[in-house]
């Protein structure tokens, strides 16, 4: 009886997580003339929507947008990791004055409303001719990816067995050497997890990208939002669902593989009181 009740809940949660995503994928494989069919599986299966989504004849360039997202997400993640690892190390290993002020600044920055940056950056980047450049999106993205990186890494670092580092130091290794040779390999899974979270956050960004990108640099989030078909009076639902499926599938696979790590990363920064 009790187990049965749990499984009812389990089924509800599974439907919650999967149903809308499943509907997007089913529509993506359905002949566009039958887009609004309600059969729960794709009837009239076709790959036409995917070729429409990837077609450049209607002014969209979705492959380019995917590449742009990888560039922007990859660069943002790399910079945030390199800078964040030092800060997270200091916060979790060293006692110094005003430490909690620094923690407060980092946490405050993570909650900062991005919209407050758009106006000054739009004007500034217009003046220096950066609108439509990659750096115009990568640099502002650091404002929310770096704080996320720091508090996730600091939480992971707090759990590392630092005695190993002390032992390496006693054996004559320099501080940096001890960190690089002993602690960094131990921290590798944490770095990897943090990189996944940072990358997902960076790729998710839309507000800044919608204002600061051009046709050539727009990421998938902007491309999908302004996706249009050949006929301006018809919303190309099926092609949009195909484009959405192309974006979602790699992320869904990533989530399925690294589920445990992503959850530990999400919760590490927040809730260990």
């Amino acid at each position, binding site marked *: 009886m009790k187990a049965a009740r*749990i499984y009812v809940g389990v089924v509800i949660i599974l439907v*919650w997580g999967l149903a809308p995503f499943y509907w997007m994928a089913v529509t993506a494989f359905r002949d566009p003339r039958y887009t609004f069919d309600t059969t729960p599986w794709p009837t009239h299966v076709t790959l036409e929507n995917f070729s429409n989504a990837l077609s450049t004849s209607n002014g969209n360039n979705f492959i380019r947008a995917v590449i742009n997202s990888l560039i922007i997400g990859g660069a943002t993640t790399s910079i945030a990791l390199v800078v964040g690892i030092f800060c997270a190390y200091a916060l979790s290993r060293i006692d110094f004055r005003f430490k909690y002020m620094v923690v407060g600044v980092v946490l405050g920055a993570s909650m900062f409303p991005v919209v407050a940056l758009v106006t000054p950056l739009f004007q500034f980047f217009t003046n220096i001719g950066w609108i439509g450049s990659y750096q115009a999106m990568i640099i502002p993205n650091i404002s929310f990816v770096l704080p996320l990186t720091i508090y996730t890494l*600091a939480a992971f670092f707090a759990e590392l067995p630092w005695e190993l580092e002390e032992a390496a130091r006693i054996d004559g290794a320099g501080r940096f050497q001890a960190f690089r040779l002993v602690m960094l390999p131990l921290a590798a899974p944490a770095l990897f997890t943090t990189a996944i979270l940072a990358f997902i956050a960076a790729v998710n960004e839309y507000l800044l990208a919608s204002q600061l990108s051009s046709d050539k640099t727009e990421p998938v989030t902007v491309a999908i939002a302004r996706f249009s078909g050949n006929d301006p009076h018809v919303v190309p639902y099926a092609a949009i669902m195909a484009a959405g499926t192309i974006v979602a599938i790699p992320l869904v696979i990533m989530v399925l593989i690294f589920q445990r790590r992503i959850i530990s990363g999400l919760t590490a920064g927040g809730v260990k009181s």
Partner: protein
Amino acid sequence: MSSGRAWLLIAPTLVILAIVIVYPVIRALVMSFQKDAGLDPATGMFVKGGSAGFSNYTHWILQQCTSASGTLVPCPPGTLGSQFWGAVGNTAFFTVVTVSIEVVIGFAMAVIMGKTFAGRALLRAAILIPWAIPTAVTAKLWYFIFAYDGIANKLLGTNILWTGDAWPARFAVIIADVWKTTPFMALLILAGLQMIPSDVYEAARVDGASAWQRFTKITLPLVKPALMVAILFRTMDALRMYDLPAILTEGNPATRTISILVVEQIRQGFNSAASLSTISFIMIFIVAFILVKFLGANAVATQENQRKGTAS
């Protein structure tokens, strides 16, 4: 280790945050006290800026616009200036409703996910899917579900204009947002639940406490710190909501949030947009301050305790 070394390690972060956050905020503040370029109503000539005093702020808060004759009048309906309080109302409404629903459903999900059963890993992976898909894709997905001929109307047997009419559009945004962000809330609550030692429940059961008593007297107080951090994070997110209403309802005024208003204003004048974004920043800061101060959502203390566990 020396304090100087620590600052050396932290310096790059502080420098970068100063460049990407502090500098734009100061620049926005300076801009917000300057007039936007435009036609001078007195001469009919195009004039550039100059000092605006607080007029950009009173433009939004008191909804004062400059009329053709140069006098201050209430902003006419339909102009962006007249929509400030509507946008504040929408943002507050979305925040209160989505966060409340998320706490209730997130709690239920967390309790279920905390049980032991076969396929637990699969369930936790499934719940991450809405969280992992970018909001812009989520918005388009629900735009399709809420289409006039879409599955939502067909399942419900209704003919609702989900993204067109005011209240259906608001609820469409709420439903899509709750779908996407409840998993995050559920995971944070689950992490809090798992830190409660099980022997506390055993003791309560031995003493004859009912399931409801165990929930209100043990679970709730012990999970409260985690819950408060989750509420703080989600509230801050909801207050800056932009992608979902902007894409899902395509500029429907009924779902216009403060962030959307700022972006629309940029096309009409940088400086009044800067004052609006400064107002929104101050509002969000005040809400965060109230949450941290009075509800005990003390994220800094949480981090502090966390480190005390293992750090030297």
